[in-house]
């Protein structure tokens, strides 16, 4: 290894391979059986449990924890998957500190919640290791549904539809399915190629075909899909990114594509990272880009956010994660220019203040040396088909996921409503599937068209 954290400019292999490997292991390692037992014992089995309400997919958390406590982690996993078929990835990536664990009554009692996320992982790992898919399909309905986007929303929708007996084809423009599970989530949250393993396991239900490298807007058209299928679910996420819009912004790198490269790298040793890295933004993506830059061996990583710490979208846990990994967090600063002739040299930042809700520059600026600047100031909807109503930059849908065009549903990040989280995408995909199913088996007067055998748990 010739490079080190202080090697100037962009360089790969700043850390020894063993150190790199160690840096990118599980952020929340799996609980072994004993640890799970101890953690499960702490659950009070609350009535109408607040954790359950806080979970966007409404998993029956007290029940699954009690099932772990009584030695039946497999039954616990079924309780989870009944509500959230991507319970495996959610156990790894959910910001539980702002969801179920924040609501845990133990927070009130002693400031330490039951470790719901890790218990969920314990249970789902156990059942998934068995390699027999726990659900079976209802008899074929003869109906066909197209899902565009193989991220969590699309996958959850496809699984539920397949279970109800419909045929589903998922189209995705990327070479691999999984959406941001595969291309976006921080590497230390989804280790050992979990995203692909989970997709394969999920497809075990049958009745789903995945066609990758197929994009709506190029080789697929809305009209074509409408003609070929009985219903359409759009789950295309947010494929665009906001530009910095300051002089020199062509020298910046989109944080999402950096993370995507990192996730797809076959050998992290070959992935270059700057000695001095600056990340612009205050959300999960900004934190992930900053932390992973440090873990790759960048010497100085600064996260610069234009408002105060309270306004950051990243949770306290994530800010602490960044700080404990040596990321310097600057707040109330914004970039005004990127400098450098033959490549990026410096970023010029301006202090800000907020008066009456309006953010203003104070005029005072300073410069930081920078070899790599990541922009993480938000993703945008891209490639939404013509004719759909847009609401706040997203496809307008009602509570059941129906868009403003008949026969077209949408969910996940691309659709209005809900936070941009994996678990929310799953909930929206699942609920849209239920509504699509209702629509497919009834006529316009609401009469039942087909009598069905019920799909569901393959053990009954």
């Amino acid at each position, binding site marked *: 290894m010739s490079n080190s954290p202080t090697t100037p400019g962009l360089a790969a292999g700043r850390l020894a391979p063993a150190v790199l490997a160690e840096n990118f292991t599980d952020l929340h390692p799996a609980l072994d*059986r*004993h640890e799970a*037992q101890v953690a499960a*014992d*702490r659950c009070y*089995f609350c*009535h109408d449990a607040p954790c359950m309400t806080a979970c966007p997919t409404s998993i029956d958390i*007290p*029940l699954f924890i*009690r*099932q772990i*406590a*009584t*030695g*039946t982690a*497999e*039954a616990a996993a*079924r*309780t989870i998957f009944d509500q959230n078929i991507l319970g495996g990835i959610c156990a790894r990536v959910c910001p539980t500190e702002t969801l179920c664990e924040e609501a845990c009554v133990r927070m009130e009692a002693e400031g330490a919640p039951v470790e719901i996320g890790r218990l969920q992982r314990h249970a789902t790992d156990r059942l998934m290791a068995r390699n027999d898919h726990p659900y079976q399909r209802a008899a074929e309905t003869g109906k066909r549904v197209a899902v565009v986007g193989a991220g969590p929303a699309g996958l959850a929708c496809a699984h539920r539809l397949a279970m109800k007996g419909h045929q589903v084809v998922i189209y995705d423009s990327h070479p691999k399915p999984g959406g941001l599970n595969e291309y976006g989530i921080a590497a230390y949250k989804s280790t050992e190629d979990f995203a692909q393993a989970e997709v394969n396991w999920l497809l075990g239900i049958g009745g789903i075909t995945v066609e990758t490298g197929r994009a709506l807007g190029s080789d697929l058209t809305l009209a074509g899909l409408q003609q070929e299928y009985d219903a359409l679910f759009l789950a295309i996420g947010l494929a665009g990114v906001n530009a910095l819009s300051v002089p020199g912004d062509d020298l910046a790198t989109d944080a999402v594509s950096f993370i995507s490269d990192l996730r797809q790298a076959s050998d992290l040793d070959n992935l270059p990272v700057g000695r001095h890295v600056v990340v612009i933004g205050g959300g999960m993506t900004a934190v992930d880009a900053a932390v992973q830059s440090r873990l790759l061996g960048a010497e100085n990583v600064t996260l610069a956010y234009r408002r105060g710490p309270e306004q950051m979208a990243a949770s306290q846990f994530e800010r602490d994660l960044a700080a404990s990994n040596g990321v310097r967090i600057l707040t109330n600063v914004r970039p005004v220019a990127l400098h450098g002739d033959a490549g990026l040299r410096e970023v010029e930042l301006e202090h800000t203040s907020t008066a009456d809700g309006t953010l203003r520059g104070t005029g005072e600026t300073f410069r930081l040396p920078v070899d790599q600047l990541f922009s993480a100031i938000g993703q945008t909807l891209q490639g939404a088909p013509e004719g759909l109503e847009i609401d706040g930059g997203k496809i307008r849908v009602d509570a059941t996921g129906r868009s403003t065009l008949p026969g077209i549903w949408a969910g996940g990040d691309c659709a209005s409503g809900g936070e941009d989280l994996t678990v929310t995408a799953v909930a929206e995909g699942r609920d849209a599937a239920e509504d699509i199913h209702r629509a497919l088996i009834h006529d316009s007067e609401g009469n039942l068209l087909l009598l069905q055998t019920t799909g569901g*748990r393959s*053990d*009954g």
Partner: protein
Amino acid sequence: MADLTTNFIGITSPNPFWLASAPPTDKEYNVRRAFEAGWGGVVWKTLGEPGPPVVNVNGPRYGAIWGADRRLLGLNNIELITDRDLQTNLEEITRVKADYPDRAIIVSIMVPCEEESWKTILPLVEATGADGIELNFGCPHGMSERGMGAAVGQVPEYIQMVTEWCKKYYSKPVIVKLTPNITDIRYPARAAHAGGADAVSLINTVSSIISVDLDTLSPEPSIDGKGSHGGYCGPAVKPIALNMVSQIARDADCGGTPISGIGGVTTWRDAAEFMVLGAGNVQVCTAAMTYGFKVVQEMISGLSQWMDEKGYASTADFVGSAVPNVTEWQFLNLNYVTKAQIDQEACIKCGRCYAACEDTSHQAISMSADRVFEVIDEECVACNLCVNVCPVEDCITMVELDQGATDPRTGRKVGEYANWTTHPNNPGALKAAE
């Protein structure tokens, strides 16, 4: 998935989990919600005579003991039978049974020990359409002082007599609920059998004083500075109940009377243990009172997972399957020799095994300066205390010595099966061996 449908004395229910006669089953509202939550059946809270209902105390009626983290381990109560009007209860039972034909509804009854009283109430209960009755011969407080409940349950002749009346005036199954407050549970069970009972259920609560307030010096629950003994139930009574169930299951004179197991059932495991020891189904009270009706979902999923793992298709496949393994001490194999073994990888070095063994047992665990704990095979009598006190499951295990191996403690070779009846130290050995 395994089929949990259970046929108990001709009464089918979708699963073997019934709610025991107690507050959870005291009214229509509760029972409907219990059925919606998934309970297979209920034994309605005990009904009394027509006329003015009994009254309960108006202060606290329950007390409790807790384990670590305030887990409820035992509950004690001074509550009486239903304090609601008989007619109201009967109407509610009729309605609920009509709406839930697939669930079991058993009506618990306690009226004075006179034929006329039973002759009066039984046709009223029969008219509800309920699936059977349970005779509450078990309540240890309040009613027993009035010659009912445990006062009947402690006199086998009375049990037989009342059971006979019930078989005479009621056409459906009769279950006799037994009190554990008796020296040998087999006598009341035999009496129930002799009286023609279709089944026995046990245990009702154990007479108890759960605690004393050290400031007021009143037993708890305290009613105006005084307390009275109550009935004890919950996880703490399970071992007592398991033993009594197995005693009846093994008793030839009980004639294979079906058993409904009660006492501390809290998880699917508890239920499975009752059932392998001979209970055809189980009844639950405290677990529902502690955690709400939803606990039954864990019981259902857990029992079916276990049945699938073991390859049991129905509950009948395993009911009583552990009974042949319950024996008398004198028949236990004295040549079964084991030694404790500590898994050094799993050991967290708390030293609890050392303290237990060194101070109170056989000085068979050594402790090094760097806190390595090891079993001294020459001293270990295999008492199992270290296993029981170790906080890490499976860290200390008992390893069996093969036949022919030498036990380092006794210097003797491990022989073939031999028990106390033939042991040289047994003065009656020769006789027993004949």
